[in-house]
């Protein structure tokens, strides 16, 4: 099954600071498909409202 077109898979991770006793540095809270942003390919729609800054893109 191919990924749905014009969609981006988003994973919401909460950082554990400091890491716990097992060395785990974060937990996955949620994951989902969202629409792709119309200007920045492979970024979630309205990415600049979701995140403070762009740290990486293709």
């Amino acid at each position, binding site marked *: *099954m191919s990924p*749905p077109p014009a*969609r981006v898979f988003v994973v*919401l991770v*909460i*950082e*554990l*600071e400091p890491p716990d006793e097992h060395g785990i540095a974060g*937990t996955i*809270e*949620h994951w*989902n*498909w*969202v*629409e792709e942003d119309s200007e920045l390919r492979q970024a979630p*729609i*309205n990415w600049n409202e979701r995140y403070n800054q762009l740290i990486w893109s293709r």
Partner: protein
Amino acid sequence: MNTPEELGALVRATFVGETGEFRPCAVFDRALDCIRVITADTSVTEIRVNDLLTVLEDNYPNSNSRKYVGFTIKGARHFCQQRSFNLTIPIKLTELLDAILASTPDPFVRVVIDGIARPLVEEKKIEPVSLSGPVPRAA
């Protein structure tokens, strides 16, 4: 735990005896303060409607299935507290949807609630959802 096989074994062991057929349901995600209503066991895309409401669109619909198979209500507990819902008993989703409608003049929200969310709740007989219990603290 180092391998995918070990992870898989851990997950299976955690949910042993709890697997079964999918059924439409509403669940409250305490960590994210979000109610999720899902009526089909399928991959979905989250389409934001407004600050509170998001609809879930089936990624692989067929001719016999619905395009929208669920919705989420973000900040659900906070919203209910603001409007003096009794959180010691499960919340009826139709009442919560009514309160969301009353909170906004946006006609698009009305279309989504009356055309998508409320029919899903009523036709799939989604049971009330409990928002009680402690709110997890941020790490």
